[in-house]
C-alpha cells in the first residue's frame, strides 16, 4: 500500500480554532478529568489530615482564607462537578439519548450552566 504524503493540518485549539459548544463541552471534560487525576494525592492528604487531627479544622480555615487557596479549591470543586455532570451527559449519549445535533448542543449548554450553579452553591457554602 502506498504511503501518500497528505498535507497534515496541525490542529491545536491553541491556534484559535473555532469550537462548537459540544466540542468545548468535550475538551473541558477531558481537561477537568486530567486536573482531578493530578489532584488525587493532594485530596487524599487533605482527607487524611482531617481524619487524624482535631486541630486540622483550624489549620484548614487558616489555609483556605488566603485568596489563592480559595480560588484553587473553587477550581477543584468546579472540575469535579463539571466532570460529573458532563459525564452524565456522555452516559446519556451512550444510550443514544440526545444524539441529534440540536439536542446535543442543548444538553452541552445545560451541563455548563448546571455546573456553574452547583459550583456557586458549594463555593458559597464553603467560602
Amino acid at each position, binding site marked *: 500500500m502506498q504511503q501518500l504524503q497528505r498535507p497534515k493540518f496541525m490542529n491545536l485549539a491553541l491556534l484559535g480554532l473555532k469550537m462548537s459548544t459540544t466540542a468545548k463541552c468535550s475538551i473541558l471534560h*477531558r481537561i477537568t*478529568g*486530567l486536573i*482531578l*487525576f493530578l489532584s*488525587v*494525592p493532594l485530596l*487524599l492528604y487533605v*482527607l*487524611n489530615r*482531617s*481524619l487524624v487531627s*482535631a486541630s*486540622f*479544622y483550624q489549620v484548614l480555615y487558616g489555609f483556605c482564607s488566603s485568596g489563592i487557596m480559595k480560588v484553587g479549591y473553587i477550581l477543584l470543586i468546579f472540575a469535579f462537578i463539571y466532570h*460529573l455532570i458532563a*459525564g*452524565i451527559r456522555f*452516559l446519556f449519549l*451512550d444510550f443514544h439519548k440526545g444524539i441529534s445535533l440540536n439536542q446535543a448542543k442543548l444538553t452541552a449548554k445545560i451541563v455548563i450552566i448546571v455546573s456553574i450553579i452547583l459550583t456557586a452553591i458549594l463555593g458559597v457554602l464553603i467560602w
Partner: protein
Amino acid sequence: MVNRPVTGAHYGIISWLQQRVTAVIMLVITILFVASIAFIASQVDSSIVSWQKLFHHTIVKVVMQLFFLALLLHAWVGVRDIWMDYIKCNIIKLGLYVLTIVWLLLSLMYSVKVLWI
C-alpha cells in the same frame, strides 16, 4: 493482530465498559456521601468530630475504598486515552502509561492508609 503495538488503539470494548461502570459506581457513592455529609452537617452538635466518627464505621470505609478502586480503573482508562490521542512515539507513550499506573497505584495504597490505618 500479531504486530499490534502494546500502546495501540482500536480494541478496548472492555476498557470502554470499565470506564462507564466505574463512573456509575462512583456517581452512586458520591450521592450517598453528599447525603451523609448534609445529614451530619444539619445536626445541632456537628463538628470535625462527627466527620471523623463517620469514617469509623466499617461500611463507610469499605464503600469509600470501593470508590477509590473504581477511581483508579476509571482514571486509568481516561488518562490512557489522553496519551493514546496525543503521543505518537510508542516508547514515550509506554513510559507515560507506566508513570500513570504507578501514580494511580501509589494513590490507591495511600487511600488504604487514610481509610484503614
